[in-house]
């Protein structure tokens, strides 16, 4: 390891080192801009339903990441340049997601959180009701932070939200770089660690959405970084980190349930390792922070967010049951790359191959990384935690094979991947020299990282959703919108904010944001059955009455119940293949005394249950 690859000692200015070796950065930034432009052009073509090859998107992503990766493998780049590179990496890949959807939220959780943010701004208080995910208002960290920008700028939740998530993304990569630097003493390993983390299945799309984990995960990494700094400092200096750590833990507990439990788990593990190594609980054992995190998480759960038990409990129970029943052979294993519906196109074989290759590369790197990390860093409890966490990641892969455990495994993988990124970065392939030349080793690492990033994104996001779809279109000088967006805008124009609607999943989300109306959907309460059954049952009208719902918005397209695909225009060439609800499902509402169809547009009808 060279001097340049090691972070300057504490107290010196790492950015000053930037001047020595940052001359490659501008060219790499140009590549990143060009890659983003290509990704954006690909999405424009996709929105025109011209069916551009997804390969164009991956070419754009590779134009962004490969120059960054190659430079990160070099010996001579300074710590400051490496930090700048990982920041460029994080923000550019965030741009790929951003430019896919602008200027509207279309990922399933985004409208839910945007609605919460709007509720906070409109009512000036937290904890307002959310009809779709009732647990979300009880974790208002993201929406509270967004409300600051919304109120101070007058921006929409979309505008404020993308700024907050962008800032969080920047924090994630920068804090991770400093964390790995602190543990290893090597900026080169730290930069490569962040590069590997970009191959996390959720990094490109899911974790970039406006959702609470997109803020809590970066703060989680920030807390780990602060702890690592504290624990490597003298006690009198280390105590300076106490307040940032406490604020970070508090912010996490307020922001996201699973991340708060992850903090408790990781800090408890660290405290136990320190106890094992030092044989006592004295400085720098972080047990007080573990205890604080546990106390705050439990207090928040009991005092504020008790509904989380009803929300998470069934998910975790189903996951556990699924693991056992799949392992026992009672249930078939979940097929990989499979969507929920038969009409969802499957991932092409080549793309599957890239995703499997990515996992294969990570698996192959694991033993070498573990060996090196064990040899060099095992006295450091953080390194041990990362090693165990790297192994844990492969446990989450196994969960993907059990149908009801898939989501749990997916959520957990974001945390465990931090450890895997650390371990894989320790492999040291970039130092491999052939006849004194290091270029082969560097090229191999760059190529492998490219496969890991692309393969990770393919594995973590449905194939047919890698590119965007049209919500709006230009026509003869005007702008037309999809029938789902049109009815949401109609509701916004014609009804008060408090009006309640029952509708399909995607329509409900558009009603929440951007239309700021209250919409129920899904199975709890069971709106889905009310909408899809050909005739009304006895329990349905009383349920609607109990919920105070006056308007039913029914979308005959079955895709309307898909929270990722149901927002967009139908392609004329695919109308014949589109699955629609039976006519009876729509017409049954006519039979309700006093009800009338007051709106019709495309496949969507709106019934007023109290028209008469």
């Amino acid at each position, binding site marked *: 390891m060279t001097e340049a690859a090691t972070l300057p000692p*504490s*107290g010196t200015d*790492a*950015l000053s080192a930037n001047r020595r070796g940052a001359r490659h950065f*501008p*060219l790499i*930034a*140009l590549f990143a*801009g060009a890659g*983003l*432009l290509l990704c*954006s*052009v690909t999405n*424009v073509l996709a929105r*025109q*339903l011209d069916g551009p090859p997804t390969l164009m998107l991956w070419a754009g992503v590779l134009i962004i990441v490969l120059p960054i990766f190659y430079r990160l493998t070099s010996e001579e780049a300074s710590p400051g340049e490496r930090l700048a590179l990982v920041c460029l990496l994080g923000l*550019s890949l965030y*741009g790929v997601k951003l430019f*896919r959807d602008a200027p509207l939220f279309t990922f399933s959780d985004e409208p839910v959180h945007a609605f919460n943010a709007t509720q906070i701004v409109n009512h*000036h208080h*937290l*904890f307002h009701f959310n009809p779709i995910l009732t647990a979300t208002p009880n974790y208002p960290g993201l929406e*509270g*932070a967004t*409300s*600051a*920008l919304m*109120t*101070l*700028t*007058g*921006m929409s939740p979309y*505008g404020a939200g993308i700024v907050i998530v962008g*800032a969080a993304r920047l*924090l994630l990569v920068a804090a991770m770089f400093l964390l790995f630097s602190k543990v290893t003493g090597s900026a080169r390993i730290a930069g490569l660690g962040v590069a590997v983390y970009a191959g996390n299945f959720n990094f490109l799309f899911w974790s970039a959405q406006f959702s609470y984990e997109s803020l809590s995960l970066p703060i989680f990494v*920030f807390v780990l*970084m602060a702890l690592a700094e504290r624990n490597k400092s003298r006690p009198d200096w280390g105590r300076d980190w106490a*307040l*940032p750590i406490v604020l*970070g833990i508090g912010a996490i507990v307020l922001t996201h349930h699973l991340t708060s439990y992850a903090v408790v788990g990781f800090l408890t593990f660290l405290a136990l390792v320190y106890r094992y190594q030092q044989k006592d609980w004295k400085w720098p054992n972080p047990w007080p922070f573990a205890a604080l995190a546990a106390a705050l998480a439990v207090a928040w759960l009991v005092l504020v967010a008790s509904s989380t038990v009803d929300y998470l409990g069934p998910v975790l129970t189903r996951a556990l049951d699924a693991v056992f029943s799949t392992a026992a052979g009672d249930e078939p294993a979940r097929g990989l790359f499979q969507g929920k519906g038969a009409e969802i196109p499957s991932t092409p074989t080549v793309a599957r191959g890239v995703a499997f290759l990515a996992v294969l590369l990570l698996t192959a790197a694991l033993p070498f990384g573990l060996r090196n990390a064990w040899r060099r860093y095992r006295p450091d409890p953080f390194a041990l935690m990362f090693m165990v966490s790297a192994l844990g990641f492969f446990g989450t892969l196994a969960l993907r094979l059990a149908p009801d455990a898939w989501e749990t495994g997916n959520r957990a993988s974001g945390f465990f991947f931090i450890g895997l990124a650390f371990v894989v970065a320790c492999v040291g392939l970039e130092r491999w020299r052939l006849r004194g030349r290091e270029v082969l080793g560097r090229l191999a690492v760059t190529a492998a990282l490219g496969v890991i990033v692309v393969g990770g994104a393919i594995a973590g996001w449905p194939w047919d959703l890698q590119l965007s779809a049209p919500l*709006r*279109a*230009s026509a*003869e000088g*005007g*702008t*037309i*919108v999809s*029938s789902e967006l049109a009815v949401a805008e*109609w509701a916004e124009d*014609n009804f008060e904010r408090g009006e309640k609607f029952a509708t399909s999943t995607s329509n409900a989300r558009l009603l929440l944001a951007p239309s700021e109306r209250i919409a129920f959907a899904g199975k709890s309460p069971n709106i889905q059955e009310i909408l899809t059954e050909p005739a009304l049952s006895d329990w349905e009208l009383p349920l609607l009455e109990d919920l105070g719902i006056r308007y039913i918005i029914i979308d005959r397209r079955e895709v309307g119940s898909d929270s990722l695909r149901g927002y967009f225009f139908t*392609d*004329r060439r695919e*109308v014949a293949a589109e699955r629609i609800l039976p006519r009876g499902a729509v017409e049954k509402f006519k039979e309700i005394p006093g009800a*009338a*169809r007051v*709106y*019709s*547009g*495309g496949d969507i009808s709106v019934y007023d249950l109290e028209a008469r």
Partner: protein
Amino acid sequence: MKGHADLRITTAAALICAAVAVAVPLEAVRLAFAAPLTLFLPGYAIAAACFAQRRLPGAQVWVVSLGLSLCALALGAFVLNYAPGGIRTISWALLLVLVVLAGCLVAAARRGAAAGARRLRLPRPRPLAVALTGAGLLAAVAALVLAATTFTVESAVGHTQLWVLPEPDSGSSEFKVGVGNQEQTAVPFDLLIRIGDEPLIRRAFTLDPGETEILRLDAGPTPAGTQIPVVATLLRQNQTDEIALRVQNWVPAPEGAG
């Protein structure tokens, strides 16, 4: 804060940013000032207070400031929730300025008078580096503009909207019938409206794509407590044998009518 230029600048910047964000009506200007006020200054002030005796390295200052600012925003909303007036523009501005002020005061007190001012040394990039980075930034901006631009989608299936809704705030038995053209081309429509047993009202008009026509009509005098049925039927001109859409509603009589 004498002798601590960074703290003075931070405090002044927070005050200016808060004042502009609160007072200026232009969204872009407000964002330019609100962004540092929310995403950097509170964190910098807290970091300055925490690390008064031992300055953090430059890169770490930026990262810690960003991290602590995000924490302050998440926790700040919780604090404001219980403050008089709740979460508003002015309360956010006040809270963030207070955090910055408190952090800087604590930092100044903990640093002591002997501590020298911290100088922020910005790198001086070469012209070529500026040009390349600028070109990269320009490409990213072009990508953003493309992403936000609406293009033609020839194979997208358009639709037509028709609705009828009462106007409850009108004080009379008014209602509105709306027609929206979300088709790919301009469409000539025939709109037929029947109010109770009255003769059909017919309106013919052409709507361009994205255009909406709203007719406001009065159902006329009605006995109190009764409702008049309104049925709207939409046809495409020259295709009168094919009903495009039909909706209906009941228009309530205004209070005191009859």
